[in-house]
């Protein structure tokens, strides 16, 4: 049953738009070399993951496409399953520097991150937000089923 207060009712939409806007904005920045502050860690991670098959420029371009597509998916609320899969892939990738580049993300591992490490750690909020806004669309039937089981008279 939707909440009667429209602001409460629409809050997942606000969250989805906010998340999408951040993805889109930071994704577009990565199309422009030297403009994104996350360039160093992001490109090094993608290069490491690709065993240096991708050079820095290609790695950044690939990441720019990924983030922009996720952003568009979230903002326009289209292709939720694909967006969710890309979102999960991206989220796993964002946490990888903590493992692959601990020297650049921690003052002292594992509990004292530096500023870049904090930037990554806070992505846990993104995970929760993405989960909240995308999961109901990815599994709508199952949620409806479980809702009807919980209150059969409604």
């Amino acid at each position, binding site marked *: 049953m939707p909440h009667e207060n429209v602001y409460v009712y629409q809050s997942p939409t606000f969250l989805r*738009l906010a998340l999408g*806007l951040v993805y*889109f*904005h930071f994704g*577009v*920045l990565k199309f*422009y*070399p*030297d*403009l994104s502050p996350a*360039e*160093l860690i992001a*490109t*090094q991670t993608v*290069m490491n993951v690709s065993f*240096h098959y991708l*050079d*820095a*420029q290609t790695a950044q371009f690939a990441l720019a496409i990924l983030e922009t597509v996720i952003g*568009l998916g979230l*903002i*326009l609320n289209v292709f939720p399953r694909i967006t969710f899969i890309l979102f999960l892939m991206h989220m796993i990738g964002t946490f990888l520097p903590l493992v692959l580049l*601990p*020297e*650049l993300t*921690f*003052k*002292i591992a594992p509990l004292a991150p530096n500023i870049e490490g904090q930037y990554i750690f806070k992505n846990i909020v993104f995970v929760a937000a993405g989960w909240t806004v995308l999961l109901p669309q990815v599994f709508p039937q199952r949620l409806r089923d479980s809702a009807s089981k919980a209150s059969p008279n409604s």
Partner: protein
Amino acid sequence: MWSFVKKHSSKAILVFVLLVLTFGIHLTYDKYRGTGLSRLPLSSARLEAAEPQPDSDTSVAAKNVSYRRTTPAAPFEEDNLQLYPTITKGMRTPFDLWKYYGRGVSSFGSPILPMRFEQWLDFHSKQKPGLMADVHAYMHDRFDFSGEAIPGTFMSAGKPIMRGPIARLASVKSFEELAALKPSEIRKRDLFPYKPLAHPLQSNAHMVFPQMWTKAHPEHERIDVDMDFPDTYLPEFPPALFLSTHKELGDVAGGREITLDNYYEIFDGLLTPEQMEGLKELLRPSPTTWFNHTDHRVTKSPSKGVACFDCHVNGHTNAAFELGPDSRPNMSRLRTDTPTMRGNYNLMQFSSKRSIRSMDHFSEVEEYFDGDPGMQQAIGPRAVKREVTNRMGDFNSIIDYPPAPKLNPLMRLIPDLATEQELRGEELFHGKAQCAKCHYGPAFVDDYMHDLQVERFYVCRPEGPIKTFPLRGIKDSPPYLHDGRCPTLHDTVEFFNLVLELKLTKGEKDDLVAYLLCL
């Protein structure tokens, strides 16, 4: 229709907002380019727009301060050069750095590591094995290090001289077939086999010593990178040392490496007190950017530093390489091998790229070998005083070339001592091969810098002028060219045959090598 518009209006508004955002970022980027914060130079379009038009009423003086480019084979946009990757100290850099361009974040260095020293050690212990495996794969992809020597030829202290050419060719069967192509064709098909060599870890850069040296001096073994050339293709260690003031003694080092511990015993009674003092200074280690007592280092233990003779061992070279200190960012610096100090008394110009005009000046200007005097405050003083550098110059000026018994006083072959092939080589040297246009006189050098314009042969950021190297005693100083991209004399001849479009035959090239071995 109205229902469709109503249904999709919210999405249309969102798309409009995103388009505005994207356009805003694009405008921001355009403003950002060329500012002090950006690593991107101004685009050519912007530069040309800034150029005053001939029909405008702008004064002549104002025209002279325009941003006119001196055009290489093609501007960097047309060649699709890539912007240098964003990296920090210690991170891997591309081996094909000639394809890149861009500004540094700052000209000024910092003695601060991007991580704690323990992390620095850990980072390199993880990175180095993979890096070196890739470095060796890259080098073996470019060169065939077969270890085949030229029979009966040796360096001054007896090390065999390697046969070439060992540069590998792509898509053509022979160097003769390659040389028949026009430069533009070689460039278009990406066939040039002598592209520059980069420092394997250009982000840290600095001196990399050969294995033969680090075996004897483990204190110079780096945690981040090793030499990429096999020892067989490098000069002998320890090399001979000849003094112009005591030719009768021949090799005064006698197979020993001259050190602070033995120099007095070897040279007392042979040198002047000033020369002794200069030699001692050449042997005394002093802190460098990455070899010092601070955490800003590439050695496990704190380092005493590096002495002049650690690279110029016995006044010659062990082929340790560094980067030319004359440019920023680090990734734009050209790799430069250690030149020999032999015969410096005959040179008017020193250093591959910097056109240094005297031996004393050379001793004075080596600011940690990286062109950054600001590091002195943090890493420790070097700052050699003028009277000391003069004494270093005093010893430097008596280091002689190795004997060349087949040359007469005018540096021509003595026919009775030379073979037919060597004589043919000499004729080519002064004739068809045009070597003598730059390599003449007692040291076979013109003391000029020349721009060989190798960008005619491959897509790259142009390298600019490089000093002519003396050819006297050249057989003792592989690998060749400022960055060692020509591992053997045969490769060097092939390089110049291509670059100067000489159209030498295979036999003529062999003759030329035979002659070079006599110098």
